[in-house]
């Protein structure tokens, strides 16, 4: 209804059409790499290499490349490592974040404001600055090529503490006093009342952290050189540089599909929540 009358009808139609053209072009630009990886992953090795001019579709799809991806390189292991890494890191992050956010939001203790300001200022530190010492620390603790070495420095996210604290503070204080009067312990109140009420935020930071973990590359690359501890990002880089003997691009693409699929499925399932969470607190790019 807002658009009735604006300008001549013909001009308006043309503009509308142009808008759809623009959006469709960008949609194609976004989707094309995904299509290409799927397509290449089902072309046979021979067929792929025989195409001097790449074909936009294939009539003989094969799943051979997927078998190759899982057998020629330990893709399943990379996958399992990443799942474990993501689960453990996210769980630890949640525990640490929920406790700290609760303390800042509801508990009174000496030095609280000072510590909070300290936390906030830590938000501005770029990870590139601290990665050097962390690398040295983990190396000295002899935790290279181990899960603790991978996980521990990846746990904390000041921003999530901040986000959750803001949310916790919106829960009416009367609820806390009511619970206190009923003799509820702080811990029980936190997990039975606060967390359920703030579930959207908790879920949001969980998903955001999981995405971050799944895609993390820099730290795992620094801290692991043993394939048994590689995550998918490192795995794919190894595959790129030395995997599959000579360049077996269809198998590579099969691996890429396997690696990309979980997050895309997660996104399609929790689309609204993820997009809202990112616009509230995500930063990338």
């Amino acid at each position, binding site marked *: *209804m807002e658009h009735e009358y604006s300008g001549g009808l013909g001009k308006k139609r043309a503009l509308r059409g142009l808008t759809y053209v623009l959006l469709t072009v960008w949609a194609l630009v976004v989707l094309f790499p995904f299509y290409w990886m799927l397509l290449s992953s089902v072309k046979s090795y021979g067929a792929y290499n025989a195409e001097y001019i790449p074909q936009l579709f294939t009539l003989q799809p094969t799943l051979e490349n997927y078998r190759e991806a899982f057998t020629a390189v330990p893709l399943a292991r990379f996958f399992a490592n990443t799942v474990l890494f993501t689960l453990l890191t996210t769980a630890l992050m949640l525990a640490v974040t929920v406790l700290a956010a609760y303390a800042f939001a509801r508990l009174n203790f000496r030095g609280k404001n000072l510590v909070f300001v300290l936390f906030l200022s830590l938000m501005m530190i770029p990870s590139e600055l601290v990665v050097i010492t962390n690398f040295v620390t983990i190396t000295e603790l002899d935790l290279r090529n181990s899960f603790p070495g991978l996980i521990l420095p990846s746990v904390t996210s000041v921003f999530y503490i901040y986000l959750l604290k803001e949310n916790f503070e919106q829960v009416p204080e009367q609820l806390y006093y009511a619970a206190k009067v009923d003799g509820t312990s702080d811990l029980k109140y936190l997990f039975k009342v606060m967390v359920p009420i703030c579930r959207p935020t908790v879920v949001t930071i969980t998903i955001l952290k999981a995405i971050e973990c799944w895609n993390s590359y820099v730290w795992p690359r620094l801290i692991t050189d043993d394939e048994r501890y590689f995550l998918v990002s490192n795995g794919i880089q190894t595959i790129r540089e030395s995997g599959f003997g000579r360049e077996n691009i269809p198998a590579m693409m099969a691996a890429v599909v396997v690696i990309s699929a979980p997050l895309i499925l997660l996104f399609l399932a929790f689309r609204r929540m993820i997009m809202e969470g990112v616009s509230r607190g995500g930063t990338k790019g």
Partner: protein
Amino acid sequence: MKVVLRNVTKKFPARGKKDREVTAVSDFSFEIPDGQLVALLGPSGCGKSTTLNLLCGLQRPDSGQIFFGEEEVTQLPPEKRGVGMVFQNYALYPHLTVLQNILFPLQNLKGAEKLSKAEMNRRAREAAELVQIGELLDRKPAELSGGQQQRVAIARALVKMPRILLMDEPLSNLDARLRLQTREEIRRIQKETGITTVFVTHDQEEAMSISDRIVVMREGLVQQIGRPQEVYDQPANLFVAKFLGSPPINLFEGRVSGGRVFIGEEAVLAAPGLAGGEVTVGVRPEGFLLKADGALGCRLRGVEVLGRDVSVLAAHEACPGAVIRAIVNAQERPDPAADTVRFDLKPGKVFLFDKTGDQRLL
């Protein structure tokens, strides 16, 4: 500028499967004489805002015609209609100063209409003086009070010398004290400029107090058009009678029999020439006269002292589930300890409606 609406209808298509088509304005015909201040009055969803949007051109009617003076504007886009509009939340551009806001419409003028900088400034200042915000020109909207923002919005609407001025709920965002003051102000500005003005409101008191004419609407249909006192004294139907007046009208189940109106078993009023049957009897709060041998007996519920007046609260079987409220002179207040109270009804303050409420019988 005279404004005429002829058989205007506006429907909104259904959105989604569960939704149904909504007729926001239905076969609306109305003529606003030049220079009048007219209120579109009704509860929310009655189509008054849609009517306003049809007038300014943000929406287009599905059928019917709209004229400004002799010119038909039905198909004209908003910018060609020469209307000024004051939005409910004022829609002042927050990043521009008051002066820049007022200048904004003038800067859009093109070709032959284009004004020199000096002329634009002069007109903007003139408009600002008219609404008495001459000293606020360099402020940003966020630095102004609600009432001041309202004035800036009016100045911005007036600066391009519109043929008609439209206002959407102009007072709803102001607190009670400012509301009184601002409505006088709107009246003054309208009188001074002589611009035909239409405003939308859901507040009957607001509509009654300043407008030359009131258009009462309900579910897209015009219920009654008339001068405020006329609409109050001669409501066209039960809806209008209920919507206007504060405290609201008291309603009794009654019947007409033998040229007399009965509430319960008591004949309360003569109604010569009316056919017998069930009716709804509406009595304005000021339509009750306390009288020891009055025609209507009610159980006394309480007495509220309002200062000059006294509000008598009562109950009656013919008025189920509601409290009867009568406003009487403070000197005549009844004994609060009494069980019953009796009234006579003033003839001009009593209305009879048929049982559907669509038609007034008396």
